[in-house]
């Protein structure tokens, strides 16, 4: 009996928590007059795809979507490679200033982005003078900053996973004639996969969600804007297009949802591993 009560209780909380999302998807399918009705009802009798069509055609959503996907995927791949190497060096080898480096990583993560927006803006502007693809108004500049802000956390989290792989394994691999390089990529890399998964989710979400840098770096090149900015196109002082905003929000949530579903199981164990380090 008590158990049933807990179950019911949890279910109600979950329903309340998820309700705004249900409402978001519902509004995306509602015809326009129902969205701004003073008597909102939690269903619709006339579902329509109009809002999605408007979002995709009027605001060139497809283009922004592609931009966001490119930035997020490049950041994830690069951060996996770089953080894996760094985490290995930090756990497997001992050298002077190892602890200092670890603490430095932590401090980097704690520097709030707002402290860096000003110089990063200038940095990207001068980078753009020599390599336009990584300068202001280009997607490359976003890749650079997101990579920088997701790396410390990724390295930090992966440390625990690399440390959990027994050193004997490396010795065995060396005895069997495996080169350093081979050991790294064919033995260690697959073994820390759960950790890589957990870190990649966070890097992905980080890059995908960003609003501040997209807003400050991509100033005049409209074709290089990312999704969070595209949403603002529909927000107007006089007449907001709610249907399109909700349709856009729904579309934006789908990739994160898919990514998350794929890695859900590993994420919890991944976070646990990060603490064990």
């Amino acid at each position: 009996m008590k158990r049933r009560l807990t179950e019911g209780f949890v279910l109600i909380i979950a329903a309340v928590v998820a309700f705004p999302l249900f409402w978001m998807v519902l509004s995306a399918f509602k015809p326009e007059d129902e969205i701004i009705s003073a008597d909102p009802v939690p269903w619709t009798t006339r579902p329509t795809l109009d809002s999605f069509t408007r979002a995709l055609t009027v605001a060139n959503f497809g283009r922004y979507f592609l931009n966001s996907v490119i930035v997020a995927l490049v950041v994830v791949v690069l951060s996996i490679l770089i953080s894996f190497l760094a985490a290995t060096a930090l756990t497997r080898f001992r050298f002077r200033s190892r602890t200092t480096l670890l603490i430095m990583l932590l401090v980097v993560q704690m520097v709030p982005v707002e402290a860096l927006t000003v110089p990063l803006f200038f940095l990207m502007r001068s980078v753009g003078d020599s390599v336009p693809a990584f300068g202001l108004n280009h997607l490359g500049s976003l890749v650079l900053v997101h990579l920088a802000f997701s790396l410390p956390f990724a390295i930090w989290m992966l440390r625990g996973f690399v440390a959990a792989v027994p050193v004997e394994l490396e010795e065995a691999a060396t005895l069997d004639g495996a080169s350093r390089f081979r050991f790294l990529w064919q033995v260690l890399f697959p073994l820390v996969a759960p950790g890589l998964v957990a870190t990649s989710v966070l890097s992905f979400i980080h890059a995908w969600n960003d609003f501040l840098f997209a807003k400050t770096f991509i100033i005049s090149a409209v074709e290089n804007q990312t999704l969070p900015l595209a949403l603002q196109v529909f927000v107007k002082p006089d007449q907001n297009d709610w249907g399109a905003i909700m349709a856009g929000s729904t579309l934006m949530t789908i990739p994160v949802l898919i990514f998350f579903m794929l890695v859900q199981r590993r994420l919890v164990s991944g976070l646990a591993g990060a603490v064990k380090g």
Partner: protein
Amino acid sequence: MAVLDSISTGKRSVADRPPPVPRKRYPKWATRAPLLPALIFLIIVTQLPFVATLVISFMKWNSLDPAGRGFAGIDNYVNVFTDPDLRSSVVNTIVLTASVVLISLLLGLGLALLLDKKFAGRGFVRTMLIAPFLVVPVASALIWKHVLYNPEYGLFNGVLNWLGFDAQPDWISTMPMTAVVASLVWQWTPFMMLILLAGLQSKPVEPVEAARIDGASPFQVFRYLTFPHLRQYLELGGLLGSIYIVQNFDAVFTITSGGLGTANLPYMIYQTFYQAHEYGEASAAGVIVVAGSIVIATFALRVVSSLFKEAK
């Protein structure tokens, strides 16, 4: 977390001890080379700009007045601390971060404890509870602002209406800060829940069973076994949460546009830099944020760990 522990306690924990040296010695450069890409990259993109921030923060520099550029001494810092808008943005940042982190940690702990029990449909409930974390923050802020808070067609007032209340408050203008906090708590509780759930599920079962057999009450089990085990997970959640919420820009920008006394530091810096073009002042504010967050993080970690040490 070993790093954190060693910082907060001043002692090196076991896990932090360097691993035993492999039989074969590698040349010096080979052991450090894998670290280089990350290190060089981080230095260029985060460390050098921070040094630049420091330098600019001591300069008089407004892009609308390029001729007036020069050394300003500590003028920018004085301005930041005397300008009432900037001062209130410091307070707002602290209030916002502290309340969001504490509330979402508490709620997350409650939910994690509930989810740790086995019941039918647990996977489904868990997915539903995690969902808010997966929504893009800007979208989430828009949902809260218009779908929930809107005085005319928002859901909150719709429910009030449906329950028979006449009051139709304008949520955002009557309680702007609470409105922002509520939307952020909704987004961050799932994150805290995930971390704490990971902690709960990595907890060994035997001691709990032994305690039960010895007649410990569920509260005692929680207080003396579960809670101490969760400590570092709570710390991790609190630390990561603070790092991200101190930087929050989307919610404030979208829900109140920094008005009604909710402007936090990121918003203020954005305004000083991109609208007033006061580069020096914006940088000074940035430096203050960094100093503040390092002090608070170190202090908070020490206090928290010492509290737990005494409890043990």
